[in-house]
């Protein structure tokens, strides 16, 4: 038995790297092992090259590379368990969060949005990618399954991010959901059906899955398409925005007129007093409607009142198309709520009475709170403005009322005696 020289060892080290051993950790093991094998065989009669080639034959043609691949596979397998449990836990947690969040939202409890948001977030960034990676690993031999899991991954991420975007009122939410669903039905489903009907086991299961996919995707598309057609909703929103702008404009004009009137009547203390009183009364009513608006937005959207006060009207577009406000505004159960329709009506009546006492010729027709004819039926003012209306319409009606207050104020300011 002879020891190998430094050059020979260096030669082997380089050679096994060429043969595919890139991991330095593994290369230490194998270098020593091969050296031991060679030293066992080496004597005065056999030269190094012959023995080395004979030793390599023991490993087979791709032998060294296969050792490294096997090592990597085993090491990944260890991660597999970790990933598997992380996937399961994140799946349970995110679905529970979404369920509880939905329940909270239904009950109008605080924290509903944050729950749904984190649920969908975890699902999108943790559960779905892990599911995809694990599925991808377990089906590496089958091309169709790989394509299937890629499409499944992309469409499920699109759908869940669509939901996430929707909750956050980010743009593109609807498009994402629709593309995700279309991908699911027109790409995932055909490949899935093909692969299932080649493989006859579990046909009932597969049929159930197919029906669920079609029904689920259909519901998602219908859901994201409900509400109004784009043209109708666009023109509605133009109306809302314009009313809002007009209301803001009238507020400014009224403010200016108030200052002008005050300056004009510097010498008439009674008139000044009356103008101030009028201004105070309209401000009181106006502030009430503004607060009412913020409160209703905060309840429906599950955001704080401060945020609701500053919300951009456009953000309400994609949300709040449900009737949860009717109860709050009209039912006796919520009579203690500060901003019921009845209380608003009372405030308007009080204001009208006050204005009437200030100016006999005041035109109060804009603040009419009488019954209205709706589809041939007499409906009281509260119902006609608030019953079964979604948040955007309720907000729109409140903006209109604010506009009417300002218009009345402006008209009456000029008539104050």
């Amino acid at each position, binding site marked *: 038995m002879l020891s190998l020289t430094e050059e020979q060892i260096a030669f082997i080290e380089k050679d096994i790297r060429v043969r595919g051993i890139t991991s330095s950790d593994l290369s230490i093991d194998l270098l*020593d092992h091969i050296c031991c094998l060679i030293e066992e065989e080496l004597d005065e009669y056999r030269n190094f090259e012959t023995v080395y080639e004979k030793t390599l034959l023991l490993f087979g043609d791709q032998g060294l590379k296969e050792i490294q691949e096997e090592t990597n596979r085993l090491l990944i397998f260890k991660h597999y368990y970790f990933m598997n449990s992380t996937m399961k836990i994140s799946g349970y947690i995110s679905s529970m969060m979404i369920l509880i969040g939905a329940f909270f939202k239904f009950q109008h409890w605080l924290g509903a949005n944050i729950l749904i948001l984190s649920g969908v977030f975890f699902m999108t960034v943790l559960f779905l990618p892990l599911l995809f990676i694990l599925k991808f690993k377990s089906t590496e031999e089958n091309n169709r399954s790989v394509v299937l899991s890629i499409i499944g991954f992309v469409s499920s991420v699109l759908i869940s991010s669509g939901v996430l975007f929707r909750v956050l009122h980010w743009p593109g939410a609807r498009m994402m959901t629709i593309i995700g669903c279309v991908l699911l039905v027109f790409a995932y489903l055909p490949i899935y059906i093909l692969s299932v009907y080649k493989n006859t086991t579990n046909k009932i299961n597969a049929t159930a899955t197919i029906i669920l996919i079609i029904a689920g995707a259909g519901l998602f598309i219908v859901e994201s398409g409900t509400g109004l057609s784009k043209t109708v909703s666009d023109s509605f929103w133009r109306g809302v925005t314009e009313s809002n702008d007009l209301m803001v404009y009238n507020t400014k004009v009224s403010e200016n007129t108030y200052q002008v009137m005050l300056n004009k009547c510097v010498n008439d203390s009674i008139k000044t007093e009356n103008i101030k009183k009028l201004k105070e009364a309209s401000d009181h009513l106006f502030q009430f409607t503004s607060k009412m608006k913020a409160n209703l937005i905060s309840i429906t959207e599950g955001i704080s009142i401060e945020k609701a006060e500053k919300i951009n009207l456009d953000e309400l577009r994609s949300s709040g198309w449900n009737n949860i406000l009717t109860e709050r505004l009209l039912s006796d159960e919520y009579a203690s709520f500060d901003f019921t329709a009845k209380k608003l009506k009372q405030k308007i009546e009080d204001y009208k009475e006050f204005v009437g006492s200030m100016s006999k010729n005041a035109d109060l027709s804009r603040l009419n709170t009488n019954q209205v004819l709706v589809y041939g039926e007499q409906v009281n003012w509260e119902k006609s403005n608030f019953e079964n209306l979604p948040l955007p319409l309720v907000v729109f009606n409140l903006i209109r009322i604010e506009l009417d207050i300002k218009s009345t104020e402006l008209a009456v300011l000029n008539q104050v005696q």
Partner: protein
Amino acid sequence: MYICPMYSSELIKGTLKTVILKLLSDTKKMYGYEMTQKVKELTDSKIVITEGALYPLLHQLEAEGVVTTETVNIGKRVRKYYTLTHAGNERAKEKIYEFADFIHTMNILLDLKPSI
């Protein structure tokens, strides 16, 4: 994965880990080649461990924290010695016990006459 002239591979599959753990719990510190030689010697060449089975397993055990390694300079090259960790010792006991129990069960199942 073993080269085993005597036994079919499905019989041998799954026993390598137990064998390695047993070797390491008997001899505290071993390197790869030494393990293959030891098994060859103990089994009279009936079982020969190949490199392709041994090293991936050793690396897996290291990643699981069952064994630790230390490198020692041997002449002009480096040799990596494997030692059981505390958890590894426990694992070795479990594995050996499990296998002994398995053999006992197989004895009953296959109705083997106890060899005298």
